[in-house]
């Protein structure tokens, strides 16, 4: 967990933001917040999946958050002021997760949500915002041209987990602003420790001349969004006090379906050579999911896929030995 606070420590200077989960999306949100505002960061380790340890760690985080808001190590209960945002971008579960794996993750989410609700209930002058990074692909799996009015119908434990998290947040009665961002397939730069997804994997394996295995079909349709577009949008919502006062549940999508074949062709053009592909025969993740332009909120802009793929490639190849070292090769 990373806690960000205005460099001066002044409650009026801007919100305190606690980001839970600093993988691909969480790290990008932290970077976008730091780029937009002068913030000081502190890292708190959390033991995901170990409930006995996690409860104490979250209590410590709660104290640290309160302390950061009060501008002192020990805060006076009930007197916190200013703006505090929680961002939930954690989660190890993916599309292949079982019910058992998602249950642990739901418990962790509940613990963090409880902490946020306690702070909101206990401090009338504190404005609490809770931002949940959800999965549009998980909750609308198999649907096409998803629009604002489309009904979620998750088909597997991962999608049900995300929908349950949304329900827990939105049904809560604590006085706080609830922001739910449903993301489509997010891709980012090739970096160690981050889940990669189709595009960076194809690029990386293409650079190394290794084969990639696709767990879908050549014509499986997906909607890809660039992680920095998402991070900028979320950071703006958290930093903009006016916009961050309304509850919001939105889909962040490019609204342009892309087939696996299209991505393959694009990567081959950028690399200037063929990539090696094998297709998993039990393509359990082969359902199409696409989004209509009408589903995305005003003010959201998705960068063109081709430009970003070229940028990922440029950054990867210009990294040279450092890039290979960072990836453990």
């Amino acid at each position: 967990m990373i806690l960000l606070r205005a460099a001066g420590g002044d409650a009026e200077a801007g919100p305190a933001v606690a980001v839970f989960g600093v993988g691909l999306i969480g790290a990008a949100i932290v970077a976008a917040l730091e780029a937009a505002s002068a913030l000081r960061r502190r890292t708190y380790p959390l033991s995901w999946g170990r409930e006995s340890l996690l409860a104490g760690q979250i209590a410590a985080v709660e104290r640290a958050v309160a302390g950061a808001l009060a501008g002192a190590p020990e805060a006076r209960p009930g007197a916190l002021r200013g703006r505090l945002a929680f961002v939930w971008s954690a989660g190890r579960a993916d599309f292949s997760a079982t019910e058992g794996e998602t249950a642990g993750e739901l418990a962790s989410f509940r613990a963090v949500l409880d902490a946020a609700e306690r702070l909101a209930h206990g401090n009338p002058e504190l404005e609490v915002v809770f931002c949940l990074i959800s999965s549009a692909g998980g909750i609308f799996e198999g649907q096409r041209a998803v629009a604002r009015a489309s009904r979620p119908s998750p088909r597997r434990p991962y999608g049900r987990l995300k929908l349950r998290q949304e329900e827990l947040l939105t049904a809560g009665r604590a006085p706080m602003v609830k922001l739910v961002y449903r993301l489509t397939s997010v891709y980012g730069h090739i970096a160690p420790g981050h889940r990669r997804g189709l595009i960076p994997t194809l690029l990386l394996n293409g650079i190394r001349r290794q084969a990639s295995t696709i767990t879908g079909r050549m014509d499986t349709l997906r909607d890809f969004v660039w992680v920095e577009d998402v991070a900028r949008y979320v950071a703006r919502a958290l930093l903009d006090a006016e916009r961050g006062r309304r509850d919001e549940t939105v889909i962040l999508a490019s609204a342009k379906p892309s087939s696996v074949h299209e991505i393959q062709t694009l990567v081959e053009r950028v690399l200037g050579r063929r990539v090696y592909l094998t297709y998993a025969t039990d393509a359990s993740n082969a359902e199409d999911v696409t989004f209509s332009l009408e589903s995305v909120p005003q003010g959201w802009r998705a960068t063109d896929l081709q430009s970003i793929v070229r940028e990922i490639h440029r950054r990867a190849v210009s990294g040279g030995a450092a890039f290979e070292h960072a990836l453990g090769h």
Partner: protein
Amino acid sequence: MDRVYLSTVTPVYRGGRYLRRLVDEIRELREALDRDRLPVEIVEAIFVDDASVDGSAAVLAELAAAHPWVKVVTLSRNFGQHPATVAGVLHACGDWVATLDEDLQHRPRLLVDLLARAAAESHDLVYAEPRGAVHGSVFRDATSRFYKTVMSWLAANPHIRRFNSFRMIRGSVARAAASVASHTTYFDVALCWFTDRVTSLPLPLKEVRADERDHSGYRLRSLLDHARRLLVSSEIKPLRVGGAVGVGALGLGVVGGALTLILKLVRPELIAVRGWTSLFLALTFFGGLLSLLLGIALEYLSDLHLQALGRPAFFVVDRGKDALLRPLCERAGVP
């Protein structure tokens, strides 16, 4: 209920005055499909604004605001009809993608017939085949037919005769062809790289512009550009013929040379001119060899050209949903 999704793609350049009628007709078809409980849904109507010059952009914005299923893709400059179609197809998510012109030459109600025809025999691509004259110009219709016939023979592609911008394409095939298309690729040629299950359906197509004395969106220059694209994208038979002529000439040179050499050795008096034998041997052998090497080089060039254009090694297609369209075939009277 499991449904088949249909997307329409329309490039827009100079068709502002027809767009409202076109969207109205698509809306009527959407409602009819829903009312008749047919398992097909027009999930989106994509209009690609190819830097239109007649205020079409404002009309499209108004239509998109009124109908959530109308989607507008705006190109940064005028790229031409094929690139605009490719851009639209790459934004489409339907199981089937229909491409139709902006000027009501291609009536949306005919989409049902095209789709039924495709589903009846699991075709991947169905072209509308005009019944009678289309453009209101006998000369233009005749030159178009003549050029397609010649190209069909040159490229050894019988489907070129059917090429028409009113088409019903299996979505996966359409997107695959669009994703490999470069700025010089003729979209229909790229489609034929992914499927040979191509057919056509005679339909009444009539250019409304001609009746309304409106200028066609196509000028002579863009028609010539179309012809150039078709030529460049196709695998041209004469290149292969060049290689075959080279092999033949080399063989002839070797055989002729051997005979001449034997003649020189056995009956030298028959060759009156001194030096003729060596000159003839050199000419036939090296002429044949050069033709052969040129043929091979052209073959390599053609192969590289097609690779650069994106011709695939293979492509996988799923036709499993075609069975859902049975009620549509029955309604359209397609066996």
